[in-house]
């Protein structure tokens, strides 16, 4: 669930309080950089396209030239600078007590618990951006049709590997 709309908590530190209040650990702070670069790569083509439309369509028509370009780049900058760190702060997880707990989002917050014994198999993945920052994401597969995969991004690679080993010990090989 991605959050694209700014959700302003009343307390500016509410995002931290959110995880702490629910007894969750935050993900690695470097994850906000991963999100920022990913957002940048998505926003950049849109901003460039807006500029091209401005130059090639609005200027010949005698429209308000420059308005669209400025608006697109300004909005893009705000989205890239402010939102990723908020989104990263709203991810939280807790491992232990025989279960993995993953919470995400604020506007639409979903708090998922997967008992280790219900895990079918586990993936640890790493994308090119994550590799720069030494992060990995953990994907847990269950046999349920809803929530058949639960993804937890923004983990330090060593932590992700350790979590995988922890869960792996609990997996039952035959679920018949």
């Amino acid at each position: 669930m991605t959050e694209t709309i700014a959700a302003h908590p009343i307390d500016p530190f509410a995002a931290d309080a959110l995880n702490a209040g629910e007894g969750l650990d935050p993900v690695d702070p470097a994850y906000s950089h991963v999100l920022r670069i990913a957002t940048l790569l998505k926003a950049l083509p849109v901003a460039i396209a807006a500029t091209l439309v401005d130059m090639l369509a609005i200027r010949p028509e005698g429209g308000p030239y420059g308005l669209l370009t400025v608006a697109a780049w300004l909005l893009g900058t705000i989205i890239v600078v402010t939102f990723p760190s908020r989104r990263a702060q709203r991810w939280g997880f807790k491992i232990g007590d025989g279960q993995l707990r993953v919470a995400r989002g604020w506007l639409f917050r979903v708090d998922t618990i997967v008992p280790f014994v219900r895990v079918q198999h586990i993936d640890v993945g790493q994308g090119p951006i994550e590799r720069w920052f030494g992060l990995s994401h953990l994907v847990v597969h269950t046999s349920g049709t809803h929530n058949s995969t639960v993804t937890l991004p923004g983990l330090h690679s060593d932590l992700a590997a350790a979590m995988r080993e922890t869960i792996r010990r609990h997996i039952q090989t035959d679920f018949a």
Partner: protein
Amino acid sequence: MNEAAAALPADDAVAETDWQRLHPATLLLAIVKLGPRSVNFLPALAAIGIAGKWIYVIPALGLFLLLSLVFAWLAWLRFRFAVGADEIVIESGVLARQHRTIPFDRIQDVSIEQGLVARALGIATVGFETGAGGGKKDDARLDAIGLGAAQALRATIRAHRGTAVPVVATGAGGGAEAAAPATEDRLLFAMSPKRLLVAGLFNFSLAALAVVGAAMQLFDNVLPFDFNIFNPLDWIDIAEQYGLDQWVVAHRWVAGVGAAISLLFIGFASGIAMTFLANWDFRLTREPRALRRTRGLTTRTDVALPVRRVQAAIIVTGWLRRRFGWHELRLQSLASDGEKEKDHQVVPFGRLDEIDAVLAEIGIARPGADRPWAHSHRIVALGGFVGAGIAALGGVIALAVGQPTGWIPLAIAPLIAAGAWISAHFHGWAEVGEMVAIRSGWIKPKTTLLPFASVQSVDLATDFILRPLGLATLRFGVPGGSALGSHEIPAIPLDIAKALRARILGERGVA
């Protein structure tokens, strides 16, 4: 066809003599199937004909049929299977060879299916459900072997499963299994023709109407008489022939009534026909480890549903049939039911006491009538209200630009809102022992009985509307799909949701 000579290296586990082929009657079935398939060849024939070379049409068709038959024969020749001590091996393919080994341990379900022609020939298709992710197309099939051989094969696999698989205490049916040890098969539920007729009446469906209507359009010029039952003018015409025209013109509503009666007739007739085709001679039997269902008039299917694989029970009904005390029971299982259904219909149309008897076999009990149901917050009607608002807005805009049809959405909007509001009162849940019961719906009431042990994961979801109200939605990940949607308890107080989640998962932690 040089591949025919180059056989794959023989499987060490299977002796050469164990190999079996499909029933020879399968070749007859291939000829029957050739009919529809040759339609694909028609454009080519037409092209030859248009080119003016009519003389080649018959030889070309003959060659096509001959090649098809040769290929079918080769395919039959190159398909062989062997039943080993604890696995089944299937080799197939004419050009591209395929060698597949399926351990009995991995076979979750063996289905036997017979089409109309197959029944006449005494053969059956055996399907092995392995739970592979690819769905039906990835599952192995023996198409087809003799019916006796099919049943023997299934008995072999079942017997193996029974000895090799240890009892898993976490299974939903664990308790029931212990209570009802391997007894002989006994009939749990059957449908008499009278019951089928009643069920068919409730299955009133106008789906067939579109087909009939289209056919009427298509054959309008072909039929010897020019009569469309949906056209009131035709009814006036027929009245005219009997000298009733004056009377009918004066009473045009008669034509309307005639059309309405024919609509009703088609609706009821198609409902009854579909019920009879699908559920003729419906039998649900309890076998030592499974529930077994056979049904169907033209295509008979025979499905075994291992009791321990049942994940949840779903009771659905309709607002009208509930007044008469009729309900339907479906079981959600790891194995899926055919290509269309995701869950297993085990009681298509029955009384609650009949459903209770079936539920008792799988160790699930309905909450008693005295059990208080906790209700979801009325906010669940919000979605309907928003939809109604959008419809009303659309109607107003249409009216504003001078479209008189705008009155239709404007009139429907309050109905949508009222429906959503009434439905919201039916959302509720109850906790019964180690099971949670969830009910919803007004037009189509649905009760889900979900044992804690089936829950694979739990979502506790809030959003910007639920959070200020202190509410949360619980969503459960349960193995096996259901055609009736995911299992969730919407909009209940956050503390209660958290406590329920802890209880459900706590149940898991102990096991």
